[in-house]
């Protein structure tokens, strides 16, 4: 069984590496986004202020560069995969196979992530280093904590995406739901502007939402904005969200499967 998943991952990896033009386009858009964001911070800091809310310009530059790289790497295509498979009726052939569907889609996305690491993250980090210098982590320890935190972030993002995908089973027409979710994630995760710059009330609310634990938590750890103890605490919350969303997805999937099997979708 594990072999099958690995093979799906490998096939995705190979397919993605074959599409060259898409890689150029993606690196291009991400680079533009990165340059624009960093220049914005540079302008904001021009007034001669050394630090804003204890962040130096270098902190925010590093934060931005890494945020964009994570964005390029975190491939969560489940929601679209499910949506298209349902629209084209292809989901039926997947049901004929003696293998759990969602796990296959996860294997597929992991393949996407691995290929993105090779053909998006590497060129982006090179370009970023040329323009702004190498975005070093604040310490070796923070780098060490950064990686597991990223894994948890990805788990949260993927589960959210899969949950949106499930909705497609019920409404057939997903419409802009995926885009709405993506926008909410983009803003509330602190991937564009860290939530530390947001009003107090927004920060308080977002503490109880899963979004800030997707980008801001690992990035905060990387630039050394949070201490080791706080970092571990944040990762515990991440893990909690992963568990919660996982249970939610399983329950939703069970109901969806039952409904599909009974009503024929």
């Amino acid at each position: 069984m594990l072999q099958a998943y690995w093979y799906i991952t490998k096939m995705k990896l190979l397919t993605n590496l074959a599409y060259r033009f898409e890689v150029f386009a993606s690196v291009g858009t991400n680079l533009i986004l990165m340059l624009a964001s960093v220049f914005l911070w540079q302008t904001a800091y021009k007034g001669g202020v050394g630090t804003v809310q204890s962040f130096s310009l270098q902190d925010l530059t590093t934060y931005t560069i890494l945020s964009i790289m994570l964005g390029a790497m975190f491939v969560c295509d489940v929601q679209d995969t499910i949506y298209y498979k349902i629209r084209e009726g292809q989901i039926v052939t997947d049901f004929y196979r003696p293998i759990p569907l969602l796990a296959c889609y996860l294997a597929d996305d992991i393949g996407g992530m691995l290929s993105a690491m090779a053909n998006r993250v590497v060129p982006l980090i090179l370009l970023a280093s040329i323009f702004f210098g190498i975005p070093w982590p604040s310490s070796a320890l923070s780098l060490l904590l950064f990686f597991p935190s990223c894994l948890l972030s990805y788990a949260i993002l993927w589960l959210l995406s899969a949950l949106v995908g499930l909705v497609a089973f019920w409404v057939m027409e997903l419409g802009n739901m995926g885009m709405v979710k993506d926008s909410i994630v983009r803003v509330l995760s602190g991937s564009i502007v860290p939530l530390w710059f947001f009003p107090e009330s927004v920060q308080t609310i977002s503490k109880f939402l899963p979004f800030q634990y997707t980008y801001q938590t690992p990035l905060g750890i990387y630039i050394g904005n949070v201490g080791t103890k706080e970092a571990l605490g944040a990762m515990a919350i991440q893990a909690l969200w992963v568990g919660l969303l996982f249970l939610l997805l399983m329950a939703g999937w069970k109901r969806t499967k039952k409904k599909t099997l009974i009503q024929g979708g």
Partner: protein
Amino acid sequence: MEAVIEVIDLVKEYTIAKKGRGLRGSLKSLLFPQKTKVNGVDGISFSIAPGEIVGYIGPNGAGKSTTIKMLTGILHPTSGSIKVCGISPQADRKAVVGKLGVVFGQRTQLYWDLRLGESFELLRRIYQVDKATYEENMAVLGDVLKLNDFIDTPVRQLSLGQRMRGDLAAAMLHSPSVLFLDEPTIGLDADAKHAIRDFIKEMNRKMGLTVILTTHDLDDVEQLCSRLVVVNHGKVVEDGPIDSIIGKLTPHRLLVVELERPCDDLSHPAATIIKQEGLKVWYQFEKVRVTAAELISDLSQKLPIQDLSVKEPDIEDAIRAVYKGY
């Protein structure tokens, strides 16, 4: 021998929301949906022995696909029982699905962007077929379906006939005991159709594969199936060998006579003239009332016959009779 597939009193009820007309109607049905219950499948029973090739036919919307979906476990019946290889697909879908091969003429389970062989490798891992068995199966399949010509081609570049052959191989990789074919020859040219029918026959003969075939192509049925199950309006209307179904449904035969010159009195007491075109006359008669020989000798006594031919009713007439009559 024990049946491979046993279906008893299968019923599938659908709830259909009625949509109102116009703006007012659609508002109304949005707020107070009117639901009606429709039986897509209404009490179907049959059993299929190992090694049979059964044609499961009926007009569009007769409940064929619904039945197939229930047999493969992706739909649950409202009532009734199904056993595939002794297992209920509703209770243990994964076990049943491992014993089935499914091919849709209008859909593919192959990976679009990758070479054909890649899809087979994946399926080998999904069905956990060991390497030796896989090689063996691939050798047989590759030989009969001539896969080697295009196994390294990306699926999106295959012709429909090649893709269909690929899909058949994909469905047979894990040596299933039952193969479901849903319109496997749709849109194919004569040559490709021929190849696919040959393949089905070959697998049936060699491995004792049980095949259930739904199709609108009556040539498929005639060349492949020994038995037909005909459904209409969710019920089984006929079940038996092809010949007996044809005989039962269309007792008429046709005698076409071409005359040398126009005649006035063409009639015969045991036959009816159903068509006349210039010097050609079509007589319809019933086997039980008069034999073809008698009719010909009677007619040749009073008419100057130049040429004649007798037409047996074919499967198409029989099927049309079924679709119209019930």
